[in-house]
């Protein structure tokens, strides 16, 4: 912190006081820069050139022209220095230049547009933080989902899955690695891995991490992604050696195949009414976990007999659920078996054999 402040020139130490109205106008400029940055990520220089032609504010128009012309950070600073001299007596103009430089410099550095927005609006003070959050959340709603995938061969998805058995372990590892490395390793992982990491950063942070991972798929080679993944693997091992995280074993992850086979057989043998009643009595979370201990054919059977509303509730719970240890899946399976037993006894339609098998499932031990 001290080193960052110590390198600041004297001019930057002066806080600038401008009216609320001026700050609101500067917020709009920041939003325009964020929007250009978003387009520049997919359309590159063309978006910058088009935006410069449409821009009415002089500093931003000049800055966009410079970027479209291929200027680097130094060229950008130099190109806007004339305006800095002219702005010396006008606090609003100085703040506008600082904010514009922060935003355009961030575009040059390839920063995510949401990060840029945070960087720019920091110049307006803490009172604009919530306004920025609201703006970013509204942008999230219009975000296009990523459909591209690139899975680099290796054990990274397994490692992430294993870390996610205790989300605190995964969180410690990705924070220790830093956001850039995390985005690089996720660039070579399937969506399942991203879905495990994203919630650790909240809505805004998770979305920007996903965008960055997607962008890096086009920028990094397979070797570079492999190198990032290897570095992450080393980091996880060192955290484990220091006792900061505890990794689950392969055994913890793999659900007992006999349990899965038995649960699947029972679900296929039960009648619709029993399934509907038991599932109505069981929480979505327990069902989502228990269903990790069944084969897909059992999922189809369950979802096929439930009402649209119950089906939606269970699919949402499955989307929100993390991979779990076999003991947790067995415990949820046992809880569901209790409800199925109660429903089967009430309906009287299940055979003695099915009842006995449900009892075995309820009391299952590895």
């Amino acid at each position, binding site marked *: *912190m*001290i*080193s*960052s*402040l*110590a*390198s*600041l020139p*004297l001019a*930057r*130490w002066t*806080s*600038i006081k401008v009216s609320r109205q001026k700050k609101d106008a500067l917020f709009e400029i920041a939003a325009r820069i964020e929007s250009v940055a978003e387009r520049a990520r997919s359309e590159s220089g063309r978006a910058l050139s088009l935006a410069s032609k449409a821009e009415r504010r002089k500093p931003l128009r000049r800055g966009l022209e410079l970027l479209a012309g291929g200027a680097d950070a130094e060229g950008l600073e130099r190109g806007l220095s004339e305006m800095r001299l002219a702005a010396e007596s006008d606090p609003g103009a100085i703040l506008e230049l600082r904010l514009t430089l*922060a935003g355009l410099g961030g575009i040059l550095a390839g*920063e995510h547009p949401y*990060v840029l927005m*945070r*960087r720019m609006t*920091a*110049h*307006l*003070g*803490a*009172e604009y*933080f919530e306004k920025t*959050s609201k703006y970013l959340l509204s942008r999230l709603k219009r975000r296009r989902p990523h459909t591209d995938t690139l899975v680099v061969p290796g054990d990274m998805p397994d490692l992430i899955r294993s870390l996610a058995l205790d*989300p*605190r372990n995964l*969180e*410690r590892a*990705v*924070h*220790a690695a*830093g*956001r850039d490395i*995390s985005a690089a390793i996720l660039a070579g992982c399937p969506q399942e891995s991203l879905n495990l990491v994203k*919630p*650790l*950063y*909240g809505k*805004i*942070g*998770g979305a*920007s*991490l996903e965008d960055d991972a997607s962008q890096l798929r086009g920028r990094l080679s397979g070797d570079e992604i492999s190198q990032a993944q290897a570095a992450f693997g080393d980091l996880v091992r060192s955290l484990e050696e220091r006792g*900061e995280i505890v990794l689950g074993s392969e055994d913890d992850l793999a659900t007992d195949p006999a349990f899965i086979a038995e649960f699947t057989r029972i679900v296929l043998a039960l009648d619709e009414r029993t399934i509907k009643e038991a599932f109505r009595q069981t929480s979505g979370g327990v069902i989502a976990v228990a269903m990790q201990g069944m084969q897909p054919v059992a999922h189809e059977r369950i979802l096929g007999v439930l009402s649209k509303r119950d089906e939606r509730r269970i699919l949402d719970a499955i989307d929100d659920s993390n991979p779990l240890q076999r003991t947790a899946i067995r415990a949820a399976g046992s809880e569901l078996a209790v409800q199925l037993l109660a429903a089967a006894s009430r309906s009287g339609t299940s055979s003695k054999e099915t009842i006995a098998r449900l009892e075995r499932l309820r009391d299952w031990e590895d």
Partner: protein
Amino acid sequence: MIQWNAELARRLACREEEKRGIAPLIRRFMELDRRTRSEGFQALESEIPAADDPLLAVGLRLVMEGLSGEILEDILATYLLAEERTGWPFLRACVIVEGLMSLAEADDPAIMARKLVAYYGADRALGVLEELEKEAPMARAATTAKESVRAQEEA
């Protein structure tokens, strides 16, 4: 290389009795660090309403969004300089920024304490560090007790 900046030195200057106010802030950050270790970074959400400084509230949210390193430092320094702080308020804000950065890096509480006591100056830092280290086992025990109560409630 250690850089020197006259303006920074001027802003940081404050009375000895004012510097005593740093210790509660360090304890608070060490507690936040332990909390994120046991409950995750999203648990910081519940700490935001109690944040008595807008810089701390803003910084906790940025840490929750996964920002760290140079980007976090730049943004927090911009917030810090957007206000006219000098003396104790400026020193306090510097400790807040340093604490937030250490939190974001997932530093061990002992490392965090070493980074933050530096703001006392060389003459007092070691003494304060010793005091904090004496308190640390008790604080760890309190966190463990809270965790086991929570685990029992969940069970």
